[in-house]
C-alpha cells in the first residue's frame, strides 16, 4: 500500500508539470489582454508600457519557467515563513504578482479561501445530509410517490442551472419577502448570537442553491447503489436470519452501498475548494470562483494560472485519496 502511494505520488509530478504547461498555453494563447478593460481614453503607447511593465511581452517559455520557479520554490518558502515565523525566504524574493491588483496572488487566494470553504463547504455537507436519506428511502420504496417526488426534485436540481435558481431565490426571498440579504457581506464577523443569526441569514441562500445541486447528484448515486445491493443474496440471508428491516437496510445494505458513494463524494471535494463561480458571482461572495472569473475577464494570466494549477493539484491529490480509501473500505481491493 505504501509503495503504491509513493509510486502514485511520484507519478503525479510529471502529470502536474504537464497540466501546468497546458493550462499556461491555453491561457496565454487565448486572445486576452490585461489592458483590454481599460477605458479607451488611455492611449496605445501607455497600454504598451503597462504591458511591458507586467512582463506580458517576454517570450512565452521565459514566462512559463519564471512562473514555475516562483510557484514551486518561492511561494512554498513564503508559506513556510508565514506559518512558522522562520526567516527562510530570502529578503527580496519575488512572488507571483497578479496583473490586476499588483499584489501577490497567493495572498488573494488565502484571503478568499475561508469564504469559499464556508459557503461551498457547508453547501456540500448540507447536500450530503439531504441526499443520503432521500437516496436510501427512494431505493427502499422504489416507484413509491416518495421515490417519484425525489426523482423529480433531483432532476430539477440537476438540470436547472444555479444562475437561474440563484436569481430566483433572490427575487423571492430577498426582493419580495425581504427575509434575506441579496448581497453577501464579506466583512461580517461572527462575535455573538445576533451576528451569528446575521451570518446564517446571508449564507442560507447560496448554501441552499448549491446544496440543491449537490444533493440531486449524490442522491441519485445513493439510490442506484442501494438498489444494486437490495437484491443481493446476502440481503435475503440477513432477512432469513430474522434480522429486523432496520438492521438489514441501515447496517448491511447501507454499508455496502456507501463504497461507491464515498468515492464520488471524495472526488468532488476539490470542487469545494474551487468554489462555485456562478453562485459566488450571483450572491457576491468573494470566494475563489469569483477570483477566477474576474481574473479571466481581465486577462490576469498569473492569477488564472495559479488558481487553476492549485485546482489541478487538489484533483490529482483527491483522486489518489479516493483510490487509497477504496482499499481501506473494501478489503478485497489491494494494490500490492
Amino acid at each position: 500500500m505504501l509503495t503504491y502511494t509513493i509510486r502514485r505520488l511520484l507519478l503525479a509530478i510529471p502529470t502536474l508539470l504537464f497540466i501546468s504547461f497546458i493550462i499556461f498555453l491555453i491561457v496565454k494563447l487565448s486572445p486576452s489582454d490585461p489592458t483590454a478593460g481599460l477605458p479607451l481614453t488611455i492611449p496605445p503607447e501607455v497600454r504598451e508600457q503597462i504591458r511591458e511593465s507586467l512582463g506580458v511581452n517576454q517570450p512565452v517559455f521565459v514566462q512559463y519557467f519564471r512562473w514555475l520557479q516562483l510557484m514551486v520554490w518561492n511561494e512554498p518558502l513564503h508559506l513556510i515563513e508565514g506559518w512558522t515565523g522562520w526567516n527562510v525566504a530570502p529578503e527580496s524574493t519575488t512572488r507571483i504578482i497578479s496583473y490586476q491588483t499588483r499584489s501577490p496572488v497567493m495572498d488573494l487566494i488565502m484571503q478568499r479561501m475561508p469564504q469559499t470553504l464556508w459557503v461551498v463547504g457547508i453547501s456540500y455537507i448540507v447536500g450530503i445530509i439531504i441526499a443520503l436519506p432521500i437516496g436510501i428511502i427512494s431505493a427502499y420504496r422504489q416507484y413509491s410517490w416518495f421515490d417519484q417526488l425525489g426523482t423529480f426534485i433531483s432532476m430539477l436540481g440537476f438540470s436547472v442551472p444555479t444562475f437561474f435558481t440563484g436569481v430566483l431565490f433572490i427575487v423571492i426571498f430577498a426582493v419580495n419577502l425581504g427575509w434575506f440579504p441579496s448581497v453577501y457581506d464579506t466583512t461580517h464577523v461572527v462575535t455573538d448570537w445576533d451576528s451569528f443569526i446575521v451570518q446564517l441569514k446571508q449564507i442560507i441562500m447560496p448554501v441552499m442553491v448549491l446544496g440543491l445541486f449537490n444533493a440531486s447528484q449524490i442522491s441519485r448515486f445513493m439510490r442506484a447503489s442501494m438498489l444494486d445491493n437490495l437484491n443481493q443474496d446476502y440481503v435475503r440471508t440477513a432477512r432469513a436470519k430474522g434480522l429486523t428491516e432496520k438492521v438489514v437496510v441501515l447496517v448491511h445494505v447501507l454499508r455496502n452501498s456507501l463504497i461507491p458513494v464515498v468515492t464520488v463524494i471524495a472526488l468532488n471535494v476539490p470542487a469545494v475548494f474551487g468554489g462555485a463561480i456562478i453562485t459566488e458571482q450571483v450572491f457576491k461572495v468573494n470566494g475563489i470562483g469569483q477570483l477566477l472569473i474576474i481574473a479571466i475577464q481581465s486577462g490576469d494570466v498569473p492569477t488564472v494560472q495559479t488558481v487553476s494549477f492549485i485546482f489541478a493539484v487538489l484533483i490529482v491529490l483527491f483522486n489518489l485519496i479516493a483510490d487509497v480509501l477504496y482499499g481501506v473500505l473494501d478489503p478485497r481491493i489491494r494494490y500490492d
Partner: protein
Amino acid sequence: MNSKTLLLGAAAAFMLSPVAAMAERGSSGHLNIIYWQAPSTLNPYLSGGTKEVESASLVLESFARFDDTGTMVPWLAADIPTVENGGVSEDLTQITWTIADGITWSDGTPLTAADAVFTWEYCTHPEGGCAQASYFDGVDSVVAVDDMTVQINFNAPKPFPYTAFVGSESPIIQAAQFAECLGARAPECTDANFGPIGTGPFVVTDFRPNDVIEFEANQNFRYPDRPYFATVTFKGGGDAAAAARSVLETGEFDYAWNLQIDPTILAQMEAQGNGTVVTAFGTSVERLHLNQTNPDPALGDLRSTVEGGPHPFLTDPIIGQAMSMAIDRALLVEVGYGAGGQPTCNVLPAPELYASTANDDCLVQDIAGANALLDEAGYVDTDGDGIREANGMPLSVLYQTSTNAVRQDTQALVKQWWSEIGIDAELRNIDASVFFGGDPASPDTFQKFYADVEMYTNNFAGVDPEAYMANWRCSEIPGPDTQWQGSNIQRFCMEEYDALVDEMATTADLQERGRLAREMNDMIIQSYSIIPLIHRGGVSAHANSLEGIRMSDWDSELWNIMDWRRAE
C-alpha cells in the same frame, strides 16, 4: 484655501441646504455604495480602470476638479491658474499651482509641493507602466518653487495646461508613503497601493481586492464639519441588474454605479419608490465608423490599410449620409438606453462650447429622403435583388461591434432600416476583451477593422477636446507598420483637417478653440466617415434618503462625496 473662498464655500453650502450647514462630521452614519465591478487596487496610477479611479477618489485628490457642469473648481489649489492671473506664462509653456492653506494628509503631515513633484516622478518612471502617463504628456519638469508652489514646465506651448494634477485620474500621492515604490518596485508596495494616504474626506480602513473597501471619515480633513458620513462600505462584484436591485428594490445599498441595463427593467425597479435613477452626460458617443479603406479579404496583408486602396463605396459621403438618415436614433435610445442616452449628430457632443448644431437634421429619421438621395446619385438596384449597386458592386456591408445585448439590439434595428434603403448588412459581434484588446495578432480588434462598419463608444477624459480631435489626423491611421496602433480608426484623411488640428494646438483663446473644435467636428460628420448615434451618459441610482448628490461625468461620480448626507 484662503479665507475668502472658505467663507464663500460655507455660504454656498448654507444656501444650498440649511440642514447641511448644521450637520457635523460623521452625523449621517454609514453609507453603502455598490460598484458591480470591484476595484482591484486603490492606486489609480497602477490601474486605469474607472472602478479604481472612482474608489480612490474618496481618498486621493488633485489640485482642481470638474463639477457636474464640467466647470473646473479649485480643490487642493488656492485658485485656478490662468494667463490673466499670471498662473500660466504668456508663452503657454508653464503653469504654477499654489497649494491652498491648511491642507494636511490624513496622517496629519502637511501637503507640500514635493508631493506633487514626487507624483510626477512616480508616474513618469520608465519602468512603472503608469496607466495615467498621458496626463503628464509634454511635461518637461515639475518643480517645487517653495513648499506651497508647484511649477509645471511644458516642452512646447500648451494652450490647455490643466492635465497633470487635475481631475480624478491624476491625483497627488504622498511622497513619504510611496518613496520606495518607484518604477519596477511599484508592485512591492502592496500596503501603500491598497491603502494610500490621501487628503480626501475618507481614509481606508480595510481593502479586499476585487471585493470590498471600508472607509471612515478623515479626522484631519480640511473642512471641520465634513464628510457627513462617518463610515463607507464600498462593495464590488455581481452585475449591473443586481446592483440596481440592491438599491431600488431591497434597499440594502444607498448608491449603485453604471446601471446599463434594459431601460424598462430599470424603470420598473425605480417605480418601487425606494430610490432614484440619476444620469450625467459627458462626452461618450456611441458611433458607427465607416471604413474608408478596403477591407476585402482578397487584399491579404493590405486589408483595411491605406496602401490597400479606398473603400469601394463608403468613401462617397452620399452613401454615408443615406445610411445616417435611415436611422431612427430616438428609437435606439428608447430600446437600449432609456435615461442614459440622447440622440446626437455630433462626435463631439459636449461641453456646450464645443458642441456643433450644424448637423442636427439627422435627429429625424428620413427613409424616403435617403432613398431619394441614393436614387439621385445613381446607386440603384440593377439586378432586382433588393440591394443597390455601386459600379456593379452590391451595397452590402459587414457591420461589427462588441458582444453586448444593447449593441446587438441596435445592430438588428439598424440592419432593418438599412434594408429599407437597399443596403444589406451582415451582422457580427466579437467578445469585448478581444475587440478592444488591441492584440496585433488578432484579426478581430477594432483597430484592425476588418469590416465595413463598426460600432462602439469612445469619449475623452476632462473637458478639453484638443487631444481627442487630434485622433483623426492622417498620421493616426492604424496599419501594420505601427502594430495597428493609432486612433484614426475609420482611416479618415484630410489635409484641411490636419491644419485645423495644428491651429488648435497653438490657440489659447477659449472661444476660438470652440470654433475650431466645432469646425473639425463638422468636417468629420460631413465626410460621413463617422455616424454618431447616441450621446451616452452615466446611469446611477441612489436611495431616496441620500442627499447632496451632484453626479458628474467629467470627474469621478463620487467627486463631492464629502457633501453627501442622509436626509433627516
